[in-house]
């Protein structure tokens, strides 16, 4: 049974600390484009709506099924992982994720997968708003987390603000 980072976006104040700590921990620099978690931010008519998007560790991941080269697989802990060497930059994983949770960096669309920081996710530890938490993925059939995020994207009209596809290759 794998774990995933659950998102309660009603508590998200949009501070992007999760993005910064993720990229520093994995890459040694503070850079949202190298973070596995991305905070969607919609600023309309004086109000802000924020939604952190991060891999929901689906039990039957659409991204893994769509990958033509087996660059996406599961590690021993059950987390969905990514092998840069096997990636051919086709973007299929990005397109099929139901909630835009496959972030890329800007240099050649290298995918930034959430590795759950070996069980102690930095983003969760640094989230002051009780917006992120680690939960067990108990649903063996599908992808409840990602479906939930996709529903939020639809209900709150957020699709146009996905922060994952900035560069059109």
């Amino acid at each position, binding site marked *: 049974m794998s774990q995933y980072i659950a998102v309660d976006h009603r508590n998200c104040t949009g501070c992007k600390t999760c993005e910064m*700590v993720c990229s520093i921990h994995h890459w040694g620099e503070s850079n949202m484009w190298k973070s596995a978690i991305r905070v969607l931010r919609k600023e309309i008519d004086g109000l802000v709506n924020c939604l952190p998007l991060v891999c929901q560790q689906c039990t039957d991941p659409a991204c893994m099924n769509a990958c033509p080269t087996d660059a996406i697989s599961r590690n021993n802990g059950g987390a969905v992982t990514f092998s840069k060497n096997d990636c051919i930059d086709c973007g299929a994983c990005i397109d099929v994720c139901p909630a835009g949770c496959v972030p890329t960096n800007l240099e050649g669309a290298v995918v930034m997968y959430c590795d759950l920081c070996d069980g102690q996710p930095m983003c969760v530890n640094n989230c002051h708003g009780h917006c992120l938490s680690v939960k067990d993925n108990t649903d063996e059939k599908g992808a409840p987390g990602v479906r939930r995020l996709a529903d939020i994207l639809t209900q709150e009209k957020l699709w*146009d603000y996905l922060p994952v596809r*900035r560069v059109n290759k």
Partner: protein
Amino acid sequence: MNYLRGGKILRIDLTNQTISTEPIEDYTDRFIGGKGINVKLLFDATAAKAEPLNPGNAIVFGAGTLVGTPFPGACRLDIQARSPVTRSLGYAGMGGYFSARMKTAGYDNIVVTGKAEKPVYVYINDDKVEIKNAGLVWRHDTYETPEIIRREVHDPTANVISIGPTGEKLVVYASVVSPTGNSASRTGMGCVMGSKNLKAIAVNGSRGIIIACPEKFLKICNDLRNTLCHARPYEELHRWGLTRNHDREMVNYYDLLGIEWNSSRDVSEETFVRDYRVRTVGCITCPVACFQGCSVPEVGAGSMKCSPPGDLTWDLRNKNMHVYWETLVMCQRNGIDARAVSNSIAWLMKLHELGIITAADTDGLSMEWGNTEAILGMTRKILFREGFGAVIGQGLTEAARQIGRGAENYLFMAHGSPADMHWIPIKTRVLRSAVSPVGGDSSVQPPLDMAAARAYIKTKDEASFLEAIQGLKDRAEKELGIRDAPDPRTTKGKAALIHQKEIVSSVCNITGECIWLTGFMGLPVDIPDIAHALTLGFGKEVTVDSLTQAALRLQSVERAFSQRLGLSRSDDTVSNRLRLHIQRKENEARDLGCSETELETMKDDYYNLKGWDVTTGLITRVSLEKLDLNDVADALAL
């Protein structure tokens, strides 16, 4: 390696449509970053006597050294130019997300000079910097402009700051605003942008901020965030922003001022937020998140924040929270300093009360205290420079000259800038308002003498008062070596109290840290934490002392900027109406307030502490050389 930096200064000349960059290194040793570098760039880039709205004036944007990292609260953008409000140094800061994105595009500071022939905006995307036609966004407000620009440049994640119609119309109090209510409000920086035909700046960047010791840096940020979240005031500030605190404080402020208002119980920010809050939001990397995003049907949405709820309710005797909100949303959308709007309307209401003006002077609006029609109507006139609003739009000093009949005697001004009407003119605050290079500046508020002033009006006799302030005196003795500093009745130690808080404020401005996360709001971030973070970020030691030196350099260059314009000791002053605003019993008003003589005594102490000439208040070559600012001394021909 350029640790913690964007790395470059971006220079944009709108007259010649030229763009250039230079490395930041020439400035970092002495000024470290943020406002420290900003003010030196402004000093160097502005023609010595350039009028505020002439192309020779520069406007400079700076992101502090810790901005773009997860150091809690490092989010500030500093904007400086010669001000059309004070006619000397202008400064306004804002939080939000723009500053961090500026650095990831590779720029720590942006200097804009000249004037575009037609309205333009600037789009920065890493090394690509374009001056673009603003035809599509001109006349749009600050909520609409960012979204239109993002669509036009096909960049949905760009961060945008803009001016609204008020800045376009060159109302001197115009502000620079983010789409979510962050506002660089004071001293008319939006008016300076308008004078350059510069509607907005949009920025996106792909670079990271490089940190010398990333894991250690991450750990101290994490630890500090934890400490913050467990600090006593945190929960209240996070859940309610300043709203509930304000509800209590406005009662206390008016009590201290000795002014009664019967309808005060009708004003409740807490109730308003309970009824209309959509979401709590905040600035980048801030755990406090003090903005309460509210939306009122038929009126609109905006952010409830520290200012201006008191200004638009209590200070105008307005008990209608819907009118407050409508005024605030108009101010946010169109881009104006709501505090200046409140101050202007309060002044007109005072003039109306005294019979100096009538409705005939103000386009038929009867400026009676609390008249909601007058508040909304006059705000609209000021925002769009219509009718009598055009008189206010030139600035209150000029408006007073035009009205005549003694109207200038009722201005509520600090160093030429409209102050907030619930500013308590106890001695430290009068001193700071007078010597501040930009007038009323709420970031420097020593708590000790304010706490003592409260004890003074609550205790029955001298013995119980002295007992009540025993702890405050102990603290002053420990921190400043001046035991009497908190006593509101004496001028002793007041300059030292101000100097101490000015250092904290300057260090925050250099690093982009929000003052709210420091002792200012009872939160724990302090200069040693900042020095520690910089040490790990740069990979070389930064001491509290070196930060203090950089803070003093910042203050010296600010002073030099004013001095070059001919300002000296006599300009370090506040209007009499502000100074004499305490209306308690005569002996209490005398003890708590500040006479002209007392202000002059404190100014002597202040100039002495800064090493400036006491007789003239002028900065000296010796004091500049001590701070390695020989070039500034040369520029002043000292």
